[in-house]
């Protein structure tokens, strides 16, 4: 070994040692399990301990209306929840970034983020106590004479949406505030001086500028909503029909891992497709958006 090669070898060895843990993390916990899941989903049980390759699991999905109805329903509800979250978070983020000055804005942001320091389980418990038939709101409505008897406010689609929007707000408010803050006020003033209406300013200046933040927020919210289990399950009860519940049923209750793997892959495909579509529509790159979110 020559004198010059020794340090180089040492550096390479060092790099190899440093690379080992991240590679182990990414391959043992992310890449290989997903490859294995794909293999599992293309498998069919022929007899005890005997398996063959087939598309049977995917055929079942498309052949059984219940499964793909739930799938489509989950996607549509998630899209609605994402849109509602955006509409609700937009004015609040604007107020925090532009209207509340200095410490007040920072305080308002902290106050808005506070509920998200407690777990989704606790927040869902709150909604259950508020909305169930014997709960706070139905009793209040009844005693105010607005309803003839206490109404059950749980187990409706609207209830699921309320819960999902509530859980997602944080992930929309933060990227929106960040992108509004970087918008130069003088642009808005110039547009106003030139006679633009509030709506025109919103459409021509604010939204184009905030597009990266809006995209980041929508992608994250849609993905989290699609993969949510707790909120639809507890607030929707038997009517929730969320796709993650189907995955759970196949995997844990029925122990039909092949079917569960296929369902998991379909959900992953939908989630990935939406992320990709969001990036395409806004012309952004994956890395930038994720780092921003």
């Amino acid at each position: 070994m020559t004198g010059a090669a020794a340090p180089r070898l040492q550096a390479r060895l060092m790099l190899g040692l440093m690379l080992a843990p991240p590679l182990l993390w990414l391959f043992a916990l992310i890449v290989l399990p997903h490859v294995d899941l794909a293999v599992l989903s293309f498998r069919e049980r022929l007899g005890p301990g005997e398996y063959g390759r087939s598309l049977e699991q995917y055929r079942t999905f498309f052949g059984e209306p219940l499964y793909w109805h739930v799938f489509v329903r989950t996607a549509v509800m998630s899209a609605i929840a994402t849109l509602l979250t955006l509409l609700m978070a937009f004015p609040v983020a604007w107020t925090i970034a532009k209207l509340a000055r200095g410490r007040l804005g920072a305080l308002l942001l902290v106050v808005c983020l506070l509920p998200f320091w407690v777990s989704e389980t606790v927040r869902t418990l709150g909604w259950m106590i508020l909305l169930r038939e014997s709960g706070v709101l139905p009793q209040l409505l009844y005693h105010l004479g607005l309803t003839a008897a206490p109404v059950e406010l749980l187990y409706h689609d609207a209830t699921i949406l309320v819960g999902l929007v509530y859980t997602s707000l944080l992930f929309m408010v933060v990227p929106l505030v960040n992108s509004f803050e970087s918008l130069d006020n003088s642009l808005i003033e110039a547009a106003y001086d030139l006679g633009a209406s509030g709506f025109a300013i919103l459409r021509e200046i604010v939204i184009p500028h905030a597009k990266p933040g809006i995209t980041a927020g929508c992608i994250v919210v849609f993905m989290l909503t699609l993969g949510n289990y707790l909120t639809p399950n507890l607030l929707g009860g038997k009517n929730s029909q969320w796709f993650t519940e189907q995955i759970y049923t196949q995997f844990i209750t029925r122990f039909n891992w092949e079917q569960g793997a296929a369902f998991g892959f379909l959900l992953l495909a939908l989630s990935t497709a939406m992320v990709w579509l969001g990036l395409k529509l806004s012309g952004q790159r994956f890395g930038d958006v994720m780092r921003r979110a």
Partner: protein
Amino acid sequence: MIPSLPSPRWLKATTLLYLGGFLLFLFLPLVTVGVFAFNDAEYPAPPWHGFTLDWFLGNEASGRVGLFRDEELLGSLWTSFVVACWVTVLSVAIGTLNAFLMERGRFRGREALSLLMLVPLVVPGVILGISILAFASRIAELVNDLAGLELEFLRPGLPLVVLGQFSYIAAIATVTISARLKRFDRTLEEAALNLGASRAAVLRTITLPYLRPAMIGSAAIAFLMSFENFNTTLMLVGSDAPLTIMMYGRMREGATPVLNAVSLFLMVASALLALTLMRRGERRDA
């Protein structure tokens, strides 16, 4: 629109009204949970029956098992704590290592690797859970067939829960710590090296202290995310249930206000953690 432009009075009023409504929406569920922890009734529901601490302190004799006597609930709280500690340590360690590799490393495939590190963030938690569950079980079976060994830690249980949560929380720690390392002024390191400091000394006395706020911040986030995780945990859990899983089980059965008590306990703990971190942040800025 913005303060420097005139805006009609109705717009200001609407903004304030909306903001008030929004805050009510945010805090109503949490306040409700807290209030009903003290209601003297068997179920967390109106009407108000008077104030009691039974749901915290009650024991078998009073017919109500309060939080501090509920072995099962306390056990799951402890389980969550242990899992969160493991996930935090592992995530911050690998996050720091990744930050150095991605910001400093010169090797082929670095770009691809740094993108791959973001992938766990866009995989739904349920799918992370089932893929790790299936993969671990297959390995366990393979080892069992080949060597006759039973690898207990690859079966559903706490080790798998830790691995499952770590698989995506590590990505969050990586992003947070990398972002800070990117802003680091490398001339500081060069100056120290010129002055004769060894590489190890530079790392210990300059670079790591600079990274500390990001490491503490991501540790807090990692701990919190682990403590609150539900989706991934649900798929990987064995017989020892962490708190979220335990609470979920009881909520489905129609629980007593002891769940409100434990929720209030969590809220106070999170608030204290948040305050401590913000204090630290302000002191640093000052």
